Every structure is written in structure tokens, then in C-alpha cells.
């Protein structure tokens, strides 16, 4: 157990340090989601009432697309210099690698959301009519739902041709219930339209089910070569 934790922490620290020095992923994600927000804003030009209804969808679609940018380069770094092969032959537990990668992506996407959400609020003149604090569990659970499966499918698409396009093709169909829950919960909270509890519970269920599945099957995927 302690080796699992120490390897997870070491891998996570390495990834964060690399990202901190280059800032490749976070910069491209920030700029990409900024572009999405601006283009959506031009395409819909909503008033305040409409904004509340559609903002949940827009913001999560922007984050979903931006997350794919981060997820795609998760494993690419490990392919250079055969790092992944070295990992495979080492006695380190496979799940430590997976948890570290998923947490790294989670941190990256959370930073993106923390920067972009206020900007989004400004551009669309949003003010939550429901309990705004509930947006935090929705964001945390929703982000985890995207990155846990995203990290897993990114590892799966490593073995395919044109893997950059493969990831969204695998991730989006499976993510449909999660995306729907995030969008509905955000819409309900922003519009003050009843309780978002059902959607938060559904997101939590999704997270538990797929985290378990990923941890159970990652070893198979990592050793597949």
C-alpha cells in the first residue's frame, strides 16, 4: 500500500513539475477554451434569461473539448525514450501509474475551470439563482468523470493508428450520461429551477462505477502490447 502511494506521489510530482516548467498543455487548453467561449458567444448572442438555460451546456462542452487536449498528451510523454516500456517491466503497480495520471489530469482541468469559470460568468452576465455552492461538487465530480475515463481511453488509444482522433471517439459515447448530468445540474443551479440532487447522485454513481472499472482493468490495458 505504501509503495502504491509513494509511486503515485512520485509520478504525479514528476508530471506536475514537467507541466510547470513547460506549461504546454495548460496554455493550449486555456487558449482553446477561451476561443470556444468567444465563438459560442458570437453564435448564440443570448440575453440573461437564455444564458442561464444554455450556459451549463456551453461551459461543459468547452471544458470537455479542452480536456481532450490535456488527455491526448497524457501518455505521449511516456512513449518517448520507452518510459512506458520501462514502467511495464518494473515491479511498480500499474494502478499507481493510472491514479497519478488521472490526478494530474484532474489538477490540470481543475485549474482550467478555475480560470475559465469567472471569465464565463463575465461574458454571459451569469448570476446563479439557485444555491451556487452546489456548483463545486458538480464541478469536482464532473471533472473526475471526464478525466478518469479520459485517462483510461487515452492509454487504450495508444495502441491504435491516429490515436489523437481515437480518444474522443471512444470517450464521448461513454461520457454521455456524465455530460448530461453535469449540464443539467449546472442549468438547474444557475436557473434556480428545483433541486439538482438527482444529477449529483447520478454523477457520483458514474464516478464510482467507472473508477472501479478503470482500476480493475488498467493492468490489462497497460500490459497489452
Amino acid at each position, binding site marked *: 500500500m505504501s509503495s502504491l502511494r509513494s509511486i503515485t506521489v512520485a509520478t504525479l510530482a514528476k508530471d506536475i513539475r514537467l507541466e510547470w516548467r513547460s506549461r504546454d498543455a495548460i496554455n493550449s487548453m486555456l487558449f482553446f477554451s477561451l476561443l470556444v467561449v468567444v465563438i459560442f458567444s458570437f453564435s448564440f448572442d443570448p440575453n440573461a434569461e437564455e444564458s442561464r438555460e444554455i450556459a451549463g451546456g456551453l461551459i461543459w462542452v468547452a471544458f470537455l473539448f479542452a480536456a481532450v487536449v490535456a488527455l491526448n498528451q497524457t501518455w505521449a510523454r511516456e512513449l518517448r525514450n520507452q518510459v512506458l516500456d520501462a514502467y511495464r517491466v518494473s515491479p511498480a503497480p500499474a494502478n499507481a501509474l493510472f491514479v497519478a495520471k488521472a490526478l494530474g489530469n484532474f489538477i490540470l482541468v481543475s485549474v482550467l475551470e478555475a480560470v475559465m469559470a469567472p471569465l464565463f460568468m463575465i461574458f454571459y452576465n451569469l448570476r446563479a439563482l439557485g444555491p451556487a455552492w452546489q456548483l463545486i461538487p458538480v464541478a469536482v465530480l464532473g471533472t473526475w468523470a471526464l478525466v478518469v475515463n479520459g485517462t483510461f481511453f487515452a492509454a*487504450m488509444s495508444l495502441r491504435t493508428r491516429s490515436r489523437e482522433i481515437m480518444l474522443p471517439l471512444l470517450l464521448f459515447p461513454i461520457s*454521455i450520461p456524465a455530460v448530461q448530468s453535469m449540464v443539467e445540474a449546472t442549468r438547474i443551479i444557475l436557473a434556480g429551477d428545483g433541486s439538482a440532487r438527482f444529477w449529483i447522485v447520478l454523477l457520483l454513481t458514474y464516478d464510482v462505477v*467507472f473508477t472501479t*472499472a478503470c482500476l480493475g482493468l488498467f493492468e490489462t490495458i497497460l500490459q497489452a502490447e
Partner: protein
Amino acid sequence: MKRAFPILAVLTALLLVYAFYEALWVAPMERTMGDVQRIFYYHVPSAWTAFLLFFVNLVASVVYLIGKNAKADALAAVSAEVGVVFCTVVLVTGPIWARPVWGIWWTWDIRLTTTLVLWLIYVSYLVLRRFSDSSQTPKLAAVLAIFGALDVPLVYFSIWFFRTQHPQPVIGGGGSIDPRMLHVLLINWLAFSCFAFLVCWWRYQLELLQRDLEEAQALEALLGDEGLPATSARARSPLNKTPSRPGTV
């Protein structure tokens, strides 16, 4: 078994013709919907067959992951392919019926959406199989099939929260059905299942043959590299045996 295939093919063709006749001429006309209701005899059997095939795919995937049995993987690939075809039939016949009856082509109702998401998941499964050319494709595909199966109940619950417009299932649901209609429906289902089984059987033999061929080609390339005379390598390869697979087991 070699002779069983044409016999089964003829029987299935006769059954399909009979079911078609029953559906168009024998089944009574529905009182409010009229003739357009007859699409039901194709829509529902296709849906049942598609779900059955997706279930076969899941079982075969789990069996493959446990035992690494190549035949289970071939069965998984085949059932997903044929299942997607039947699921497409469901998604096409549904709107054709919905337009005159509901006045709309499509609605985000629980059964429609779940079927659509299921179709999307299995299309992505087939894309993965197509795009992945390593020897590990079966493993990746089996894992994706399990993820897809876990996803379906969540999709169902997420849409269950919305209002449902689709007619209640006629079997085991709240709806009632004329016994003559049920009779026609079951005949059609039997015909469709036989047809699906026939296609799967044929495709399964083809898949095994394809794999043998790829293996033989790989072997030949390998032996060629080692400087063996190409003729002797060819003589040893199973390529030269007359392929007698389709129709035999």
C-alpha cells in the same frame, strides 16, 4: 454441419417470406394508426435481436478476458457488427413510424436515447477494432465492451428522469396487444433471429478464415526473412490448403 447451412438458409428465407406475408396481409389493421403500425413487426423484432446480439458480445468479451480464447473474440467481433446493423434498422424504422403517429421524427425519450447511445457505443467499438492493428485489439475491444455495458444503465437512469413518450413495451409492460398481432410479432421475431444467426454464423466462419490467412501470411513473411526459399515456405503454409471453412465447423 456443412450441409446444415444451406438447409438453414432456405428455411430462414421461407420463414422470412411467411413472416412478411403475415405482417402485411394477415395481421389485423390497428384501429387508430392504420397500416403504418405494421412497421412494428420489423421494428420490435430488430430491437430484440440487436439487444440479444449486444448481450452475446458482452458475454463473449468477458469470456475472452478470462480465458484469452480467440474464438470468443471472433464471436464478440461478429455479434457487434451484426448487432449494429440490426440496431440501425431499429433507429431507421422508428422515425418512419413516429412521423405520422407522433407528428415528429425524433424525441429524446428514454428508449430512443438509450438505443441511440447503445448504437454510438458499438460504433465506437467497431471503430476501435478497425483502427487498432496490433495483436492486442481483442483485449482493448473486450475492455471497451465492458465499459459500454456499464454505461447503459446510467444512460437509462439519466433519461428516465425526463418524461417518456415511447409506447410502453407490449410484452411485460402496461400495454395490451391483440393475440393475432402478438402471433405475427413472434413469427417475425423468430424469422429475424434465424436470419441474424445465419449471418453471424457465416461471418464467424469468414472471420476465422481471415485470421488463418493473416497468420499464414505473417508466417510466410517471417520464414522469407530467414532466407528460406520462398517455394518451400509456401508449401508449408496453410494457404495452399483449399479453404473449406464456410459452412463447415
